[in-house]
Protein backbone atom coordinates (compact mmCIF):
# COMPACT_ATOMS: atom_id res chain seq x y z
CA UNK A 1 0.00 0.00 0.00
CA UNK A 2 2.47 2.64 -1.17
CA UNK A 3 4.67 2.75 1.88
CA UNK A 4 7.81 3.60 -0.03
CA UNK A 5 7.64 6.25 -2.68
CA UNK A 6 10.09 6.04 -5.55
CA UNK A 7 10.86 9.72 -5.59
CA UNK A 8 11.67 9.58 -1.87
CA UNK A 9 14.47 7.03 -2.35
CA UNK A 10 17.34 9.57 -2.25
CA UNK A 11 15.83 11.04 0.93
CA UNK A 12 15.49 7.63 2.55
CA UNK A 13 19.05 6.75 1.55
CA UNK A 14 20.45 9.90 3.15
CA UNK A 15 18.35 9.33 6.27
CA UNK A 16 19.89 5.86 6.51
CA UNK A 17 23.43 7.25 6.22
CA UNK A 18 22.78 9.81 8.94
CA UNK A 19 21.30 7.15 11.16
CA UNK A 20 24.37 4.93 10.71
CA UNK A 21 26.77 7.73 11.55
CA UNK A 22 24.70 8.49 14.62
CA UNK A 23 24.82 4.84 15.73
CA UNK A 24 28.57 4.75 15.16
CA UNK A 25 29.04 7.93 17.18
CA UNK A 26 26.95 6.47 19.96
CA UNK A 27 29.18 3.42 20.19
CA UNK A 28 32.38 5.46 20.32
CA UNK A 29 30.87 7.58 23.08
CA UNK A 30 33.30 10.30 22.13
CA UNK A 31 33.90 12.05 18.86
CA UNK A 32 30.36 13.47 18.75
CA UNK A 33 28.12 13.97 15.76
CA UNK A 34 29.50 17.28 14.53
CA UNK A 35 30.03 15.83 11.07
CA UNK A 36 26.28 15.27 10.75
CA UNK A 37 25.28 18.87 10.49
CA UNK A 38 26.12 19.31 6.79
CA UNK A 39 24.43 16.00 6.02
CA UNK A 40 21.30 17.03 7.85
CA UNK A 41 21.29 20.33 6.05
CA UNK A 42 21.60 18.41 2.82
CA UNK A 43 18.69 16.18 3.85
CA UNK A 44 16.51 19.20 4.57
CA UNK A 45 17.46 20.75 1.26
CA UNK A 46 16.76 17.50 -0.55
CA UNK A 47 13.34 17.17 1.09
CA UNK A 48 12.54 20.76 0.19
CA UNK A 49 13.68 20.19 -3.38
CA UNK A 50 11.76 16.94 -3.89
CA UNK A 51 8.57 18.22 -2.24
CA UNK A 52 8.67 21.57 -3.98
CA UNK A 53 8.50 19.85 -7.34
CA UNK A 54 5.98 17.08 -6.75
CA UNK A 55 4.01 16.21 -9.85
CA UNK A 56 0.26 15.67 -9.46
CA UNK A 57 0.83 11.91 -9.75
CA UNK A 58 3.42 12.02 -6.97
CA UNK A 59 0.95 14.03 -4.90
CA UNK A 60 -1.57 11.23 -5.33
CA UNK A 61 1.04 8.78 -4.06
CA UNK A 62 1.86 10.98 -1.08
CA UNK A 63 -1.83 11.49 -0.29
CA UNK A 64 -2.37 7.72 -0.26
CA UNK A 65 0.82 6.89 1.62
CA UNK A 66 -0.06 4.72 4.60
CA UNK A 67 2.64 6.37 6.69
CA UNK A 68 0.63 9.57 6.68
CA UNK A 69 -1.35 10.41 9.80
CA UNK A 70 -4.90 9.03 9.58
CA UNK A 71 -8.06 10.31 11.27
CA UNK A 72 -7.39 8.45 14.53
CA UNK A 73 -3.80 9.81 14.57
CA UNK A 74 -5.08 13.36 14.25
CA UNK A 75 -7.74 12.68 16.88
CA UNK A 76 -4.93 11.67 19.24
CA UNK A 77 -2.61 14.54 18.27
CA UNK A 78 -5.04 17.41 17.61
CA UNK A 79 -7.92 16.65 19.98
CA UNK A 80 -8.33 15.39 23.54
CA UNK A 81 -10.92 13.66 25.70
CA UNK A 82 -12.17 11.50 22.81
CA UNK A 83 -15.17 9.23 23.35
CA UNK A 84 -15.88 7.12 20.29
CA UNK A 85 -19.51 6.55 19.31
CA UNK A 86 -20.53 3.59 17.19
CA UNK A 87 -23.32 2.44 14.91
CA UNK A 88 -26.02 3.88 12.69
CA UNK A 89 -28.91 2.48 14.81
CA UNK A 90 -30.29 0.96 11.62
CA UNK A 91 -28.12 -1.90 10.50
CA UNK A 92 -24.57 -2.10 11.84
CA UNK A 93 -21.35 -0.42 12.83
CA UNK A 94 -19.05 0.62 9.97
CA UNK A 95 -15.43 0.99 11.02
CA UNK A 96 -14.51 2.79 7.79
CA UNK A 97 -15.80 5.94 9.47
CA UNK A 98 -14.95 6.80 13.07
CA UNK A 99 -16.55 9.51 15.14
CA UNK A 100 -17.33 10.77 18.58
CA UNK A 101 -17.10 13.55 21.12
CA UNK A 102 -13.73 15.20 21.63
CA UNK A 103 -12.22 18.51 22.65
CA UNK A 104 -10.39 21.03 20.51
CA UNK A 105 -8.52 23.53 22.62
CA UNK A 106 -10.74 22.56 25.57
CA UNK A 107 -14.07 23.01 23.76
CA UNK A 108 -16.30 20.07 22.87
CA UNK A 109 -16.56 19.16 19.18
CA UNK A 110 -18.01 16.25 17.23
CA UNK A 111 -15.26 14.64 15.20
CA UNK A 112 -16.09 12.39 12.24
CA UNK A 113 -13.62 10.98 9.73
CA UNK A 114 -12.82 8.20 7.28
CA UNK A 115 -10.40 5.71 8.79
CA UNK A 116 -7.95 3.72 6.70
CA UNK A 117 -5.84 0.84 7.99
CA UNK A 118 -2.05 0.55 8.08
CA UNK A 119 -1.83 -3.22 7.67
CA UNK A 120 -3.92 -5.88 5.96
CA UNK A 121 -5.80 -6.88 9.09
CA UNK A 122 -6.70 -3.31 9.92
CA UNK A 123 -7.59 -2.59 6.32
CA UNK A 124 -9.99 -5.52 6.23
CA UNK A 125 -11.71 -4.15 9.34
CA UNK A 126 -11.74 -0.60 7.98
CA UNK A 127 -12.47 -1.68 4.40
CA UNK A 128 -9.60 0.57 3.22
CA UNK A 129 -11.55 3.58 4.46
CA UNK A 130 -14.35 2.90 1.98
CA UNK A 131 -17.65 3.23 3.84
CA UNK A 132 -20.90 1.35 3.35
CA UNK A 133 -24.18 3.28 3.70
CA UNK A 134 -24.07 2.53 7.44
CA UNK A 135 -20.92 4.60 7.78
CA UNK A 136 -22.57 7.64 6.24
CA UNK A 137 -25.70 7.11 8.31
CA UNK A 138 -23.62 6.90 11.46
CA UNK A 139 -21.88 10.12 10.43
CA UNK A 140 -25.23 11.83 9.93
CA UNK A 141 -26.49 10.57 13.28
CA UNK A 142 -23.47 12.10 14.99
CA UNK A 143 -23.89 15.39 13.11
CA UNK A 144 -27.51 15.64 14.23
CA UNK A 145 -26.36 14.87 17.76
CA UNK A 146 -23.85 17.72 17.55
CA UNK A 147 -26.55 20.06 16.26
CA UNK A 148 -28.83 19.08 19.11
CA UNK A 149 -26.24 20.06 21.70
CA UNK A 150 -24.95 23.11 19.79
CA UNK A 151 -21.53 21.60 19.25
CA UNK A 152 -19.47 22.21 16.09
CA UNK A 153 -18.63 19.37 13.71
CA UNK A 154 -15.13 18.64 12.46
CA UNK A 155 -14.68 16.12 9.66
CA UNK A 156 -11.54 14.50 8.27
CA UNK A 157 -11.79 13.21 4.70
CA UNK A 158 -9.55 10.32 3.70
CA UNK A 159 -11.08 7.74 1.37
CA UNK A 160 -10.59 6.34 -2.13
CA UNK A 161 -14.41 6.49 -2.37
CA UNK A 162 -17.61 4.92 -1.11
CA UNK A 163 -17.64 1.12 -1.32
CA UNK A 164 -18.97 -0.43 -4.51
CA UNK A 165 -20.48 -3.78 -3.57
CA UNK A 166 -23.68 -5.78 -3.37
CA UNK A 167 -24.62 -4.95 0.22
CA UNK A 168 -23.76 -1.29 -0.21
CA UNK A 169 -26.09 -1.05 -3.20
CA UNK A 170 -28.86 -3.06 -1.53
CA UNK A 171 -28.83 -0.77 1.46
CA UNK A 172 -28.85 2.43 -0.58
CA UNK A 173 -25.33 3.81 -0.95
CA UNK A 174 -26.66 6.57 -3.20
CA UNK A 175 -29.39 7.55 -0.79
CA UNK A 176 -27.02 7.59 2.17
CA UNK A 177 -24.59 9.94 0.41
CA UNK A 178 -27.35 12.15 -0.99
CA UNK A 179 -28.97 12.41 2.44
CA UNK A 180 -25.72 13.59 3.98
CA UNK A 181 -25.27 16.29 1.31
CA UNK A 182 -28.83 17.43 1.89
CA UNK A 183 -28.62 17.44 5.70
CA UNK A 184 -25.15 18.94 5.91
CA UNK A 185 -26.33 21.87 3.81
CA UNK A 186 -28.86 22.71 6.55
CA UNK A 187 -27.15 21.61 9.75
CA UNK A 188 -27.47 24.43 12.27
CA UNK A 189 -24.01 24.19 13.76
CA UNK A 190 -20.57 25.08 12.39
CA UNK A 191 -18.87 22.46 10.20
CA UNK A 192 -15.19 22.45 9.23
CA UNK A 193 -14.06 19.71 6.82
CA UNK A 194 -10.44 18.88 6.07
CA UNK A 195 -9.18 16.58 3.35
CA UNK A 196 -6.24 14.93 5.13
CA UNK A 197 -5.30 12.39 2.44
CA UNK A 198 -7.37 11.20 -0.51
CA UNK A 199 -10.70 12.90 -1.14
CA UNK A 200 -12.33 10.35 -3.43
CA UNK A 201 -15.56 11.51 -5.14
CA UNK A 202 -19.03 11.27 -3.58
CA UNK A 203 -17.77 9.10 -0.75
CA UNK A 204 -15.55 11.99 0.32
CA UNK A 205 -18.05 14.77 -0.31
CA UNK A 206 -20.56 13.00 1.97
CA UNK A 207 -18.46 14.39 4.84
CA UNK A 208 -17.51 17.54 2.98
CA UNK A 209 -20.43 19.99 2.84
CA UNK A 210 -18.99 22.43 5.34
CA UNK A 211 -18.68 26.12 6.23
CA UNK A 212 -14.95 25.85 5.69
CA UNK A 213 -13.25 23.23 3.55
CA UNK A 214 -9.52 22.83 4.11
CA UNK A 215 -6.98 20.58 2.43
CA UNK A 216 -3.62 19.48 3.68
CA UNK A 217 -0.87 20.56 1.34
CA UNK A 218 -0.36 17.12 -0.22
CA UNK A 219 -3.96 15.96 -0.06
CA UNK A 220 -5.97 15.41 -3.23
CA UNK A 221 -9.68 15.88 -3.97
CA UNK A 222 -11.14 14.34 -7.10
CA UNK A 223 -14.36 13.41 -8.84
CA UNK A 224 -12.97 9.97 -9.72
CA UNK A 225 -9.84 7.95 -8.94
CA UNK A 226 -7.00 8.46 -11.39
CA UNK A 227 -7.23 4.73 -12.19
CA UNK A 228 -10.95 4.98 -12.94
CA UNK A 229 -10.46 8.06 -15.08
CA UNK A 230 -7.65 6.50 -17.10
CA UNK A 231 -9.59 3.26 -17.55
CA UNK A 232 -12.66 5.03 -18.88
CA UNK A 233 -10.96 7.57 -21.11
CA UNK A 234 -7.86 5.76 -22.28
CA UNK A 235 -8.80 2.12 -21.63
CA UNK A 236 -5.81 1.71 -19.35
CA UNK A 237 -6.11 2.27 -15.62
CA UNK A 238 -2.93 0.41 -14.70
CA UNK A 239 0.10 1.87 -16.44
CA UNK A 240 1.96 4.66 -14.60
CA UNK A 241 1.92 6.80 -17.76
CA UNK A 242 -1.86 6.81 -17.98
CA UNK A 243 -2.26 7.31 -14.23
CA UNK A 244 0.11 10.24 -14.46
CA UNK A 245 -1.89 11.66 -17.33
CA UNK A 246 -5.16 11.35 -15.39
CA UNK A 247 -3.62 12.85 -12.24
CA UNK A 248 -2.53 15.89 -14.24
CA UNK A 249 -5.76 16.26 -16.20
CA UNK A 250 -8.09 16.02 -13.21
CA UNK A 251 -6.60 19.07 -11.38
CA UNK A 252 -6.84 17.39 -8.04
CA UNK A 253 -4.13 19.06 -5.94
CA UNK A 254 -4.86 21.51 -3.15
CA UNK A 255 -3.54 24.41 -5.27
CA UNK A 256 -5.87 23.38 -8.10
CA UNK A 257 -8.85 23.30 -5.76
CA UNK A 258 -8.04 26.79 -4.47
CA UNK A 259 -7.76 28.04 -8.03
CA UNK A 260 -11.14 26.49 -8.89
CA UNK A 261 -12.58 28.22 -5.78
CA UNK A 262 -13.71 24.94 -4.27
CA UNK A 263 -11.75 25.00 -1.00
CA UNK A 264 -10.92 27.76 1.47
CA UNK A 265 -7.42 27.08 2.66
CA UNK A 266 -4.36 24.88 2.33
CA UNK A 267 -2.92 23.63 5.61
CA UNK A 268 0.87 23.44 5.29
CA UNK A 269 2.60 20.12 5.84
CA UNK A 270 6.08 19.77 7.30
CA UNK A 271 9.01 19.45 4.95
CA UNK A 272 8.91 16.03 3.38
CA UNK A 273 5.15 15.64 3.83
CA UNK A 274 2.84 14.92 6.76
CA UNK A 275 4.32 11.43 7.10
CA UNK A 276 7.76 12.91 7.84
CA UNK A 277 6.50 14.51 11.03
CA UNK A 278 3.05 13.64 12.39
CA UNK A 279 3.31 16.06 15.32
CA UNK A 280 4.22 19.05 13.23
CA UNK A 281 1.46 18.26 10.76
CA UNK A 282 -1.01 17.98 13.64
CA UNK A 283 0.05 21.34 15.08
CA UNK A 284 -0.63 23.12 11.80
CA UNK A 285 -4.00 21.41 11.45
CA UNK A 286 -4.94 22.23 15.02
CA UNK A 287 -4.09 25.90 14.58
CA UNK A 288 -6.21 26.11 11.42
CA UNK A 289 -9.19 24.34 13.02
CA UNK A 290 -9.11 26.55 16.12
CA UNK A 291 -8.94 29.70 13.99
CA UNK A 292 -11.84 28.68 11.74
CA UNK A 293 -14.07 27.53 14.57
CA UNK A 294 -13.42 30.72 16.52
CA UNK A 295 -14.55 32.64 13.49
CA UNK A 296 -17.60 30.46 12.77
CA UNK A 297 -18.87 30.61 16.35
CA UNK A 298 -19.70 34.28 15.80
CA UNK A 299 -22.53 33.45 13.39
CA UNK A 300 -26.09 32.64 14.37
CA UNK A 301 -27.19 29.23 13.06
CA UNK A 302 -29.50 30.68 10.37
CA UNK A 303 -26.77 32.89 9.02
CA UNK A 304 -24.31 30.03 9.09
CA UNK A 305 -26.63 27.88 7.00
CA UNK A 306 -27.38 30.71 4.59
CA UNK A 307 -23.70 31.38 4.04
CA UNK A 308 -22.88 27.67 3.65
CA UNK A 309 -25.55 27.30 0.99
CA UNK A 310 -24.38 30.37 -0.87
CA UNK A 311 -20.85 29.02 -0.82
CA UNK A 312 -21.85 25.79 -2.56
CA UNK A 313 -24.31 27.51 -4.89
CA UNK A 314 -21.44 29.52 -6.31
CA UNK A 315 -19.37 26.48 -7.23
CA UNK A 316 -19.09 25.77 -10.93
CA UNK A 317 -17.47 27.17 -14.06
CA UNK A 318 -19.45 27.73 -17.26
CA UNK A 319 -20.08 30.28 -20.00
CA UNK A 320 -23.24 32.33 -20.27
Amino acid at each position, binding site marked *: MGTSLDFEKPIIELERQIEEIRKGAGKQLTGGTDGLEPLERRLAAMRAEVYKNLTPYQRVQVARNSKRPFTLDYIRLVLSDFVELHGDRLYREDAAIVGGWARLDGETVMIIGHQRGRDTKENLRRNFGMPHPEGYRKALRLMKLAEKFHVPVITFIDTPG*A*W*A*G*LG*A*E*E*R*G*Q*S*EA*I*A*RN*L*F*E*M*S*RLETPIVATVIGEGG*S*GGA*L*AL*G*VADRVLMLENAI*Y*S*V*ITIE*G*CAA*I*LWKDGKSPEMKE*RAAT*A*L*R*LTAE*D*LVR*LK*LIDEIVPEPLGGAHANHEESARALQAALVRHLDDLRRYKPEKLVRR*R*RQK*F*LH*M*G*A*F*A*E
Partner: protein
Amino acid sequence: MAWFRKEKKARQPRRERLEIPADAWEKCEACAHTDLREKFVRNLNVCPSCDYHRRIRASDYVALLLDDGSWEELDLDLKSADPLEFPDYPQRLNRAIAKVGEGDAVMTVEGTLGAMPINAAVMDFAFMGGSMGSVVGEKIARLGQRSVERKHPLIIVSASGGARMQEGALSLMQMAKTSAVLAQLAERGVPYVSILTNPTTGGVSASYAMLGDAILAEPGAVVGFAGPRVIKQTIGQDLPQGFQTAEFLLDHGMLDAVVHRKQLKRTVEQLLRHMSGQPASTGWTSP
Protein backbone atom coordinates in the same frame (compact mmCIF):
# COMPACT_ATOMS: atom_id res chain seq x y z
CA MET B 1 -48.39 14.84 -26.15
CA ALA B 2 -47.94 15.76 -29.74
CA TRP B 3 -44.69 13.99 -30.32
CA PHE B 4 -46.12 10.50 -30.63
CA ARG B 5 -49.48 11.40 -32.07
CA LYS B 6 -49.98 9.75 -35.40
CA GLU B 7 -49.72 12.23 -38.20
CA LYS B 8 -53.00 12.52 -39.97
CA LYS B 9 -52.31 11.53 -43.53
CA ALA B 10 -54.42 10.43 -46.38
CA ARG B 11 -54.66 6.66 -46.43
CA GLN B 12 -52.23 5.30 -48.94
CA PRO B 13 -53.03 2.59 -51.43
CA ARG B 14 -52.29 -0.90 -50.17
CA ARG B 15 -49.65 -1.61 -52.79
CA GLU B 16 -47.50 1.33 -51.82
CA ARG B 17 -47.73 0.60 -48.12
CA LEU B 18 -45.81 -2.62 -48.63
CA GLU B 19 -42.82 -0.73 -49.94
CA ILE B 20 -41.64 0.62 -46.65
CA PRO B 21 -38.08 1.92 -46.67
CA ALA B 22 -35.61 -0.11 -44.59
CA ASP B 23 -34.88 2.76 -42.21
CA ALA B 24 -38.50 2.93 -41.14
CA TRP B 25 -38.00 -0.28 -39.18
CA GLU B 26 -36.57 -0.51 -35.68
CA LYS B 27 -35.50 -3.37 -33.50
CA CYS B 28 -36.10 -3.66 -29.78
CA GLU B 29 -32.77 -3.66 -27.92
CA ALA B 30 -34.11 -6.19 -25.42
CA CYS B 31 -36.04 -8.81 -27.39
CA ALA B 32 -35.06 -8.02 -30.99
CA HIS B 33 -38.71 -7.53 -31.89
CA THR B 34 -38.82 -5.61 -35.14
CA ASP B 35 -41.52 -3.13 -35.88
CA LEU B 36 -42.19 0.10 -37.70
CA ARG B 37 -40.49 3.02 -36.02
CA GLU B 38 -43.84 4.78 -36.02
CA LYS B 39 -45.33 1.95 -34.00
CA PHE B 40 -42.56 2.23 -31.39
CA VAL B 41 -43.05 5.98 -31.25
CA ARG B 42 -46.77 5.72 -30.88
CA ASN B 43 -46.18 3.31 -28.00
CA LEU B 44 -43.93 5.93 -26.29
CA ASN B 45 -40.90 3.87 -27.35
CA VAL B 46 -41.93 1.02 -25.15
CA CYS B 47 -41.50 -2.26 -26.99
CA PRO B 48 -44.96 -3.54 -28.06
CA SER B 49 -43.72 -7.09 -27.63
CA CYS B 50 -41.71 -7.17 -24.35
CA ASP B 51 -42.51 -3.81 -22.71
CA TYR B 52 -38.85 -2.79 -22.68
CA HIS B 53 -38.63 0.96 -22.05
CA ARG B 54 -36.31 2.27 -24.71
CA ARG B 55 -34.21 5.35 -24.16
CA ILE B 56 -35.90 8.55 -25.28
CA ARG B 57 -34.73 12.12 -25.48
CA ALA B 58 -35.19 14.90 -22.94
CA SER B 59 -37.65 16.70 -25.20
CA ASP B 60 -39.70 13.50 -25.44
CA TYR B 61 -40.12 13.41 -21.65
CA VAL B 62 -41.07 17.08 -21.61
CA ALA B 63 -43.74 16.37 -24.21
CA LEU B 64 -44.84 13.29 -22.31
CA LEU B 65 -45.15 14.96 -18.90
CA LEU B 66 -46.15 18.56 -19.50
CA ASP B 67 -49.39 19.87 -20.90
CA ASP B 68 -49.32 20.43 -24.65
CA GLY B 69 -47.88 23.79 -25.59
CA SER B 70 -47.59 24.86 -21.94
CA TRP B 71 -43.87 24.90 -21.55
CA GLU B 72 -40.93 27.12 -22.20
CA GLU B 73 -37.30 26.13 -22.05
CA LEU B 74 -35.03 27.93 -19.56
CA ASP B 75 -31.33 28.79 -19.41
CA LEU B 76 -30.59 27.47 -22.88
CA ASP B 77 -27.68 29.90 -23.08
CA LEU B 78 -25.64 28.20 -20.34
CA LYS B 79 -22.67 26.49 -21.98
CA SER B 80 -19.96 24.21 -20.72
CA ALA B 81 -16.54 25.78 -20.55
CA ASP B 82 -13.29 23.87 -20.24
CA PRO B 83 -12.03 25.15 -16.88
CA LEU B 84 -9.53 22.31 -16.42
CA GLU B 85 -8.23 22.38 -20.00
CA PHE B 86 -8.96 18.69 -19.97
CA PRO B 87 -7.62 16.66 -22.92
CA ASP B 88 -10.16 16.36 -25.73
CA TYR B 89 -13.00 17.96 -23.72
CA PRO B 90 -13.82 20.80 -26.16
CA GLN B 91 -13.89 18.27 -29.01
CA ARG B 92 -16.16 15.94 -27.05
CA LEU B 93 -18.47 18.84 -26.26
CA ASN B 94 -18.62 19.89 -29.88
CA ARG B 95 -19.43 16.35 -30.97
CA ALA B 96 -22.19 16.16 -28.36
CA ILE B 97 -23.65 19.50 -29.46
CA ALA B 98 -23.53 18.42 -33.11
CA LYS B 99 -25.28 15.16 -32.24
CA VAL B 100 -27.75 16.30 -29.60
CA GLY B 101 -27.98 20.08 -29.79
CA GLU B 102 -27.39 22.90 -27.33
CA GLY B 103 -28.44 22.77 -23.72
CA ASP B 104 -25.87 20.28 -22.43
CA ALA B 105 -27.09 17.14 -20.64
CA VAL B 106 -30.22 18.63 -19.11
CA MET B 107 -33.24 20.46 -20.42
CA THR B 108 -35.03 22.70 -17.93
CA VAL B 109 -38.52 24.01 -18.54
CA GLU B 110 -41.38 25.75 -16.84
CA GLY B 111 -44.91 24.88 -17.77
CA THR B 112 -47.96 23.12 -16.48
CA LEU B 113 -48.88 19.55 -15.68
CA GLY B 114 -52.58 18.91 -15.26
CA ALA B 115 -52.92 22.70 -15.34
CA MET B 116 -50.66 23.05 -12.28
CA PRO B 117 -47.62 25.28 -12.78
CA ILE B 118 -44.47 23.23 -12.39
CA ASN B 119 -40.75 23.30 -13.14
CA ALA B 120 -39.14 20.30 -14.75
CA ALA B 121 -35.59 19.24 -15.51
CA VAL B 122 -34.99 16.32 -17.84
CA MET B 123 -31.56 14.85 -18.33
CA ASP B 124 -30.44 13.68 -21.74
CA PHE B 125 -28.28 10.58 -21.78
CA ALA B 126 -27.41 11.26 -25.41
CA PHE B 127 -25.31 14.25 -24.33
CA MET B 128 -22.04 12.77 -23.00
CA GLY B 129 -23.85 10.00 -21.14
CA GLY B 130 -25.97 12.48 -19.23
CA SER B 131 -22.89 13.42 -17.25
CA MET B 132 -23.24 16.20 -14.68
CA GLY B 133 -20.82 19.07 -14.98
CA SER B 134 -21.14 22.71 -13.99
CA VAL B 135 -23.90 23.47 -16.51
CA VAL B 136 -26.13 20.58 -15.42
CA GLY B 137 -25.62 21.56 -11.77
CA GLU B 138 -26.26 25.22 -12.43
CA LYS B 139 -29.38 24.63 -14.53
CA ILE B 140 -30.86 22.35 -11.90
CA ALA B 141 -29.90 24.73 -9.09
CA ARG B 142 -31.51 27.68 -10.90
CA LEU B 143 -34.63 25.67 -11.63
CA GLY B 144 -34.81 24.58 -7.98
CA GLN B 145 -34.46 28.17 -6.81
CA ARG B 146 -37.20 29.20 -9.21
CA SER B 147 -39.37 26.51 -7.58
CA VAL B 148 -38.44 27.84 -4.14
CA GLU B 149 -39.34 31.42 -5.08
CA ARG B 150 -42.60 30.62 -6.85
CA LYS B 151 -43.55 27.61 -4.76
CA HIS B 152 -44.02 25.60 -7.94
CA PRO B 153 -43.46 21.85 -7.65
CA LEU B 154 -40.26 20.44 -9.09
CA ILE B 155 -39.86 17.35 -11.26
CA ILE B 156 -36.49 15.96 -12.26
CA VAL B 157 -36.13 13.11 -14.74
CA SER B 158 -32.68 11.60 -14.31
CA ALA B 159 -30.60 9.69 -16.87
CA SER B 160 -26.93 9.81 -16.14
CA GLY B 161 -23.74 7.84 -15.80
CA GLY B 162 -22.65 10.25 -13.07
CA ALA B 163 -20.46 13.30 -12.64
CA ARG B 164 -18.55 14.63 -15.65
CA MET B 165 -14.89 13.67 -15.29
CA GLN B 166 -13.72 16.42 -17.62
CA GLU B 167 -14.68 19.09 -15.09
CA GLY B 168 -13.02 17.31 -12.17
CA ALA B 169 -13.95 18.45 -8.67
CA LEU B 170 -16.19 21.17 -10.13
CA SER B 171 -18.52 18.37 -11.23
CA LEU B 172 -18.30 16.70 -7.83
CA MET B 173 -19.42 19.89 -6.09
CA GLN B 174 -22.57 20.03 -8.23
CA MET B 175 -23.82 17.17 -6.08
CA ALA B 176 -23.60 19.40 -3.00
CA LYS B 177 -24.97 22.40 -4.85
CA THR B 178 -28.12 20.68 -6.14
CA SER B 179 -28.73 18.95 -2.80
CA ALA B 180 -28.49 22.31 -1.01
CA VAL B 181 -31.19 23.76 -3.25
CA LEU B 182 -33.41 20.75 -2.62
CA ALA B 183 -33.02 21.32 1.11
CA GLN B 184 -34.34 24.86 0.63
CA LEU B 185 -37.23 23.50 -1.40
CA ALA B 186 -38.05 20.98 1.32
CA GLU B 187 -38.00 23.68 4.00
CA ARG B 188 -40.54 25.70 2.02
CA GLY B 189 -42.80 22.66 1.70
CA VAL B 190 -42.64 22.58 -2.10
CA PRO B 191 -43.07 19.07 -3.54
CA TYR B 192 -40.31 17.43 -5.53
CA VAL B 193 -40.85 14.28 -7.61
CA SER B 194 -37.77 12.43 -8.82
CA ILE B 195 -38.10 10.11 -11.81
CA LEU B 196 -35.29 7.67 -12.48
CA THR B 197 -34.76 6.38 -16.00
CA ASN B 198 -32.21 4.04 -17.50
CA PRO B 199 -29.51 4.48 -16.27
CA THR B 200 -29.23 6.65 -13.15
CA THR B 201 -25.91 6.06 -11.45
CA GLY B 202 -22.96 7.80 -9.80
CA GLY B 203 -23.05 11.41 -8.73
CA VAL B 204 -26.59 11.98 -9.96
CA SER B 205 -28.04 9.01 -8.09
CA ALA B 206 -26.04 10.06 -5.01
CA SER B 207 -27.57 13.54 -5.00
CA TYR B 208 -30.86 14.87 -6.35
CA ALA B 209 -32.13 11.62 -7.87
CA MET B 210 -32.49 9.96 -4.45
CA LEU B 211 -33.89 13.02 -2.65
CA GLY B 212 -37.44 13.15 -4.01
CA ASP B 213 -40.53 13.46 -1.82
CA ALA B 214 -41.60 10.72 -4.16
CA ILE B 215 -39.12 8.64 -6.13
CA LEU B 216 -40.41 6.83 -9.21
CA ALA B 217 -38.54 4.73 -11.71
CA GLU B 218 -39.28 3.33 -15.12
CA PRO B 219 -39.48 -0.47 -15.39
CA GLY B 220 -36.10 -2.11 -15.83
CA ALA B 221 -34.10 1.09 -15.33
CA VAL B 222 -30.63 0.49 -13.91
CA VAL B 223 -30.22 2.57 -10.79
CA GLY B 224 -27.28 2.50 -8.42
CA PHE B 225 -24.30 4.27 -6.97
CA ALA B 226 -21.61 2.27 -8.70
CA GLY B 227 -22.19 0.97 -12.19
CA PRO B 228 -22.64 -2.79 -12.58
CA ARG B 229 -19.25 -3.13 -14.28
CA VAL B 230 -17.42 -1.49 -11.40
CA ILE B 231 -19.14 -3.67 -8.83
CA LYS B 232 -18.45 -6.81 -10.80
CA GLN B 233 -14.81 -5.81 -10.94
CA THR B 234 -14.67 -5.01 -7.21
CA ILE B 235 -16.28 -8.19 -5.95
CA GLY B 236 -14.88 -10.44 -8.66
CA GLN B 237 -18.10 -12.33 -9.33
CA ASP B 238 -21.16 -12.06 -11.51
CA LEU B 239 -24.01 -9.95 -10.27
CA PRO B 240 -27.33 -11.56 -9.36
CA GLN B 241 -30.11 -11.46 -11.94
CA GLY B 242 -31.96 -8.17 -11.86
CA PHE B 243 -29.44 -6.51 -9.53
CA GLN B 244 -29.75 -2.71 -9.55
CA THR B 245 -32.93 -2.65 -11.61
CA ALA B 246 -35.83 -0.41 -10.63
CA GLU B 247 -37.67 -3.51 -9.38
CA PHE B 248 -34.68 -4.49 -7.23
CA LEU B 249 -34.61 -1.02 -5.69
CA LEU B 250 -38.34 -1.16 -5.05
CA ASP B 251 -37.89 -4.48 -3.22
CA HIS B 252 -35.11 -2.96 -1.14
CA GLY B 253 -37.17 0.02 -0.09
CA MET B 254 -35.33 2.64 -2.12
CA LEU B 255 -38.23 3.70 -4.38
CA ASP B 256 -41.89 4.56 -4.01
CA ALA B 257 -43.01 2.95 -7.24
CA VAL B 258 -42.00 1.50 -10.57
CA VAL B 259 -44.21 3.25 -13.10
CA HIS B 260 -44.87 2.36 -16.71
CA ARG B 261 -44.17 5.20 -19.11
CA LYS B 262 -47.83 5.26 -20.10
CA GLN B 263 -48.81 5.90 -16.47
CA LEU B 264 -46.06 8.38 -15.70
CA LYS B 265 -47.87 11.66 -16.23
CA ARG B 266 -50.97 10.54 -14.42
CA THR B 267 -48.98 9.23 -11.44
CA VAL B 268 -46.93 12.42 -11.14
CA GLU B 269 -50.07 14.52 -11.33
CA GLN B 270 -51.73 12.44 -8.62
CA LEU B 271 -48.69 12.80 -6.37
CA LEU B 272 -48.40 16.54 -6.94
CA ARG B 273 -52.09 17.05 -6.23
CA HIS B 274 -51.80 15.14 -2.95
CA MET B 275 -48.68 17.00 -1.91
CA SER B 276 -49.90 20.47 -2.80
CA GLY B 277 -53.41 20.31 -1.40
CA GLN B 278 -55.15 20.17 -4.77
CA PRO B 279 -58.36 18.19 -5.33
CA ALA B 280 -58.19 15.03 -7.37
CA SER B 281 -58.38 15.44 -11.09
CA THR B 282 -61.89 14.79 -12.40
CA GLY B 283 -62.59 11.19 -13.22
CA TRP B 284 -59.73 9.98 -11.02
CA THR B 285 -61.59 8.97 -7.90
CA SER B 286 -60.55 5.42 -7.24
CA PRO B 287 -62.99 2.74 -6.05
